[in-house]
């Protein structure tokens, strides 16, 4: 039988895998070929680069000045000077080892919010809290286009949301949004946070919603939308899910496990047994 795939060793120390073309069907690092039994140099170095980018995403500080400058110039930016806040984790090493510190504001930040509440009588329905989390890159790349999709839709309808000035937090974790929402006396808080970066997704942003934010609320009181980025859940789709959750939360006056996201298409919609090319159907 004539073979269609190259099968004979040549002088090349790297043996290619004829199934490498299957990479068009998955991002998994399949068909790398081998030098002996080891990963060929080309793929070894590509992996190191991806890991380096993921590490940089974790350790590069959020460029808050640049972000604020960009966001306040947008027509949809909520009114009021953005608030710059910091968690009790003073630096990244402390942040990584003490998740409890990342969930609470430091004293200076508490004061900023108390002063704000004292000076403004504005009643807020919603506060957006923008948090570096584990990937500043995710925030820098996704925040403007995502909010540009979401905020105009929230402020235009028959029941426009009254939105607090944008809050920016350094060294923060998801639960810090509850501390901020409580001090601003906002009915609802939406945290936008850089998620734990993967090798193929260093720029993934997460969204967490709490109705009635208060320090000490657990994950059971939050709703989450994950993997917001152009190559993951795109902005229009993420915005649609966020509006759904926000409207449901406002209607039911709650969030978390009692508020189900029913916007998901059924997971089995695209089910097709022929997808498994390993099994012959003929």
């Amino acid at each position, binding site marked *: 039988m004539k073979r269609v*795939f190259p099968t004979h060793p040549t002088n090349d120390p790297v*043996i290619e*895998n004829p199934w490498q073309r*299957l990479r068009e069907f998955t991002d*998994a690092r*399949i068909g790398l070929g081998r030098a002996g039994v080891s990963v060929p140099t080309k793929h070894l170095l590509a992996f190191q680069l*991806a890991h380096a980018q993921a590490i940089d995403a974790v350790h590069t500080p959020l460029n808050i000045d640049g972000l604020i400058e960009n966001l306040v110039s947008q027509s949809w930016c909520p009114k009021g000077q953005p608030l710059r806040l910091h968690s009790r984790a003073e630096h990244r090493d402390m942040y990584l080892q003490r998740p409890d510190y990342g969930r609470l504001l430091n004293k200076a930040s508490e004061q900023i919010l108390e002063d704000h509440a004292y000076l403004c009588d504005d009643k807020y329905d919603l506060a957006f809290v923008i948090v570096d989390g584990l990937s500043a890159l995710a925030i820098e790349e996704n925040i403007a286009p995502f909010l540009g999709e979401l905020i105009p839709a929230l402020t235009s309808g028959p029941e426009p949301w009254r939105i607090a000035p944008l809050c920016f937090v350094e060294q923060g974790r998801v639960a810090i949004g509850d501390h901020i929402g409580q001090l601003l006396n906002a009915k609802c808080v939406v945290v936008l946070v850089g998620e734990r970066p993967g090798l193929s997704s260093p720029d993934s942003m997460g969204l967490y919603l709490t109705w009635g934010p208060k320090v000490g609320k657990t994950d059971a009181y939050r709703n989450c939308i994950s993997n917001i980025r152009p190559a993951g859940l795109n902005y229009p789709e993420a915005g649609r899910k966020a509006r759904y959750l926000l409207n449901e939360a406002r209607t039911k006056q709650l969030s978390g496990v009692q508020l189900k996201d029913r916007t998901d298409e059924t997971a089995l919609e695209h089910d097709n047994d022929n997808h*498994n*090319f390993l099994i012959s159907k003929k």
Partner: protein
Amino acid sequence: MTNDKTQFRFRHTVGERTFGFKSLAELMAKATPARSGDRLAGVAAETAEQRAIAQMTLADVPLKLFLEEVLVPYEDDEITRLIIDEHDKLAFAPISHLTVGGFRDWLLSDMAPPAMLEKVRAGITPEMAAAVSKIMRNQDLILVGKKCHVKTAFRNTIGLPGHLSTRLQPNHPTDDLTGIAASILDGLMYANGDAVIGINPATDNVAQACRLMKMMDEVIQHYDIPTQSCVLTHVTNTIECIEQGAPVDLVFQSIGGTQATNDSFGFNLATLAEARDAALSLKRGTVGDNVMYFETGQGSALSANAHHNIDQQTCEARAYAVARKFKPLLVNTVVGFIGPEYLFDGKEITRAGLEDHFCAKLLGLPMGCDVCYTNHAQADQNDMDNLMTLLAVAGCTFIMGIPGSDDIMLNYQTTSFHDAMYVRQALGLKPAPEFDQWLKHSNIFNDDQFTLNHQIPSAFEKSLKRILGGH
């Protein structure tokens, strides 16, 4: 480090100074090699000296004391009850006179060959294993771990000396069947997958689990592969899958070492018993009936705020009592997955991986290790090379195999298909014998030289042509 000696349960005097520890739990925690999770919990030694003194103090504790002083109250915790009620006094007899320090010497000595270690197994509690591990160096953990032989079987035989198995982990962020099939093919061609072909589903519900089980079952049957499949979904989902007639080989569950941890995971011992019975009723194993696959990892109890102020390594060892009860085919400590707040860097991950493997093997479990790290931990692929090699020397039951080390669904890095081949070549470790035969028969792997053949087996070549074209 105070003069008020009355409040201390354990004391140790060095020169003029007396160090005290209020409870066995505190003594265990302070004696634990440094790690971030114990610092986060506030139970770690405050100084290096205090840790060393705690280790000396712990070495003097008789093993018998662990049967009298439980770390989590008997009344409150079904795992404590399991440990105490099922303790085998006869098996314990040969070591019952020993202290923790004496136990270390005994384990390392010629008095404890593999057959003896197997004999005393049921007499060792998780707390005894954890205690002795705290005063053992890495090489001790490796040497004794290697002496503990644990054999299990389903469609092949896992854990024979001189063998190392791999879990083929073809995860995909949307559970796309073509993507999953591509990763399975890649893994099989690199001689991976004898421990299990196991998928972490992206969409975690019963319908999806059934779909993935069916897909893997078809592949295993079509190519007549002597291995087993598993969808890593919640145990209650798997019970439903079995009720719906899905082809379930192994039942998966993440387990922890306190009842409160497992409550937070949404199951108890009765749930696991029900699931095991259901899987056994399918009679799908051909050479054995070990039908459970458990995953563990230091830090899970603290993460669920269910640690009772016990150090994370002791909590982890208690999870092995749960595993042991249900005769698993595989147990996997997912050592670097939980993140740097529990294991900060490569050094802490390495230590924890060796501890977990040692404790589990000593208690008679088929322990494998997800040698892994996340991108926010201070670790890299070199740390994984080191731990993988150390574990392979220690006789680790299995490691993960994933395309190019990159899990595109769970966003972390573990060992690759290539890594498994490296460790086979470097240390002469073979896959499970039945799978090894299949690899040889399929012309994939040459188990004399531990090399891969150049050609694709004809059965797989046909499938490839189907999707890539050609004739």
